[in-house]
């Protein structure tokens, strides 16, 4: 017999949470940021800007978009329709996705905001979710620089939205580490304008609060200007891109998170099993004699491959050992085969 049935005890299913560096090439921190002039000039450039990790503009890392409840900061689609513009479309899009109510406002900390910047991470990068506590984002404004992280290390109860978990963005000295000063509250929020935004790990999105960021240093801001001109291009996507990329280099650190379900199959060839081979080099001649007389009573075979089959003897999965494993009548083996889904 060449097949052996597996017992129920031979199967173990395990789900493991795997975290990894977010950006292309397994890098946890982006320091240089690039845009594509082609994409910026296209129709999609009215809505968002793709951000790349290299000047070749081949690997999108994330996109930035400005959203405004009243449609300010961009030209109207039609002058006869007040308030209908790309920024209003973006606002409605995230309102639907995160709040689930077209009348509900975005409240960053304790402050209602009619606009925000959205950073939407490329799905390939964040895999299943952003790993809370891993965010470290450096933003530059006309008055200075601020570092942000999320407050997942400081909340005892996680808040949920229609888009899953929500964490507030706070002033930080490192990823997951809050820092406070005269411009912030003890929670790490701006002193007058609430938190600096939201981290929505389950949809790979970060929202930034323009009111908090545009304030003075004393108010916890960095003077990051935002244009709320009506029916006029505000270039707010470019503004946030410049704030992220800084004057020379900046820092954007994140980790991804995913749950990998593994199926472990324990393969147990017993001492009396699988000791002969159908390998053509195991026999000599055309009548099937084993190649060495020693192999008649003491065959020595080398396991290189494990095949997993269904009832129809169809090969579903295959695993190779890193080196041949000797098997004879005095040896049993226990091989753990891992199948990832």
């Amino acid at each position, binding site marked *: 017999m060449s097949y052996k049935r597996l017992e129920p005890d031979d199967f173990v299913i395990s789900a493991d949470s795997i975290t990894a560096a977010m950006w292309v090439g397994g890098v946890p921190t982006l320091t240089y940021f690039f845009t594509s002039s082609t994409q910026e000039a296209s129709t999609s450039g009215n809505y968002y800007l793709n951000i790349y990790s290299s000047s070749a503009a081949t690997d999108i890392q994330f996109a930035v978009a400005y959203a405004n409840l009243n449609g300010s900061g961009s030209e109207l689609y039609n002058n006869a329709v007040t308030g209908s513009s790309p920024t209003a479309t973006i606002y409605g899009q995230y309102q639907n996705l995160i709040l689930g109510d077209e009348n509900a406002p975005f409240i960053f900390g304790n402050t209602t905001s009619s606009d925000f910047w959205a950073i939407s991470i490329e799905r390939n990068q964040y895999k299943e979710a952003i790993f809370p506590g891993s965010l470290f984002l450096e933003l530059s404004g006309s008055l200075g620089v601020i570092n942000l992280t999320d407050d997942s290390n400081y909340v005892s109860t996680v808040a949920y939205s229609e888009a899953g978990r929500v964490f507030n963005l706070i002033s930080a000295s490192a990823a997951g580490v809050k820092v406070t000063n005269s411009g912030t509250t003890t929670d790490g929020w701006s002193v007058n304008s609430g938190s600096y935004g939201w981290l929505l790990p389950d949809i790979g999105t970060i929202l930034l609060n323009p009111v908090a960021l545009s304030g003075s240093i004393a108010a916890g801001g960095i003077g990051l200007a935002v244009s709320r001109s009506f029916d006029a291009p505000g270039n707010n996507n470019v503004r946030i891109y410049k704030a992220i990329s800084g004057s020379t280099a900046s820092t954007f650190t994140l980790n991804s998170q995913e749950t990998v379900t593994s199926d472990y199959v324990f393969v147990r060839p017993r001492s009396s*099993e699988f000791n002969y081979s159908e390998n053509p080099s195991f026999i000599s001649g055309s009548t099937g004699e084993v190649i060495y007389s020693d192999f008649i009573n003491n065959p020595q075979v080398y396991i290189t491959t494990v095949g*997993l089959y269904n009832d129809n003897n169809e090969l579903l999965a295959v695993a190779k050992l890193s080196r041949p494993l000797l098997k004879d009548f005095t040896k049993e083996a226990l091989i753990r085969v891992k199948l990832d889904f």
Partner: protein
Amino acid sequence: MGYLNNSIVTVDAILTTKGRQLLAQGGGAFTITQFALADDEIDYTLYNPNQPSGSAYYGEALQNMPLLEAFPQETQTMKYKLVTLPRGTAKMPILDLGYSAIVIKQGASLAVTPQTLNYTGGNQVEASGYTFTISDVRLFSTFEGVGINTPSVQALNYTSTIGTNVSKTVVGTTLNLKATTVNTLFGSNTQLQATLTVEGRDSGARATIPVTVTKVS
């Protein structure tokens, strides 16, 4: 007193092309129920029972050899299975197909009934039958296995294969063939060629022979 080595070998498996197909198909077809072991890549002529350093070194040429990664094509892996046979087995089961090569004319029919030699005390037809795989199904208008009537085998045998250059596998104790009558397959050639692989479902014995279909007109 020393510690026993209780470590286990852990390997990562990949899905085969067939495995991915059945996983996508759903319906419980992708259910692992059994395993087999193989020694693909091992050349036992490198085993040296005359090694002057002693029996511990007989297999030194094999034990540390680097192995290739797994191939996802199910027809290219698990070729040479390890089998469970009684200790003292002097002859391995081998397949007698009755043909060392098949040459068949366009439109002609042929039946192949394998027999397993040296198996469980003699020469016999295996109870679970044989797996027949043709590397290019287009060569035959009929390629059917008969003689095994379990529901799972019947389901396998009735699986249709898209008429492109792909393999097809059927199960039975006898394989019925009818060569294609389609002239356009030949192009400017007078012959079409493929390989037929037969494997004993109980013994694991395997044989591959060339198949040639010759153009009639």
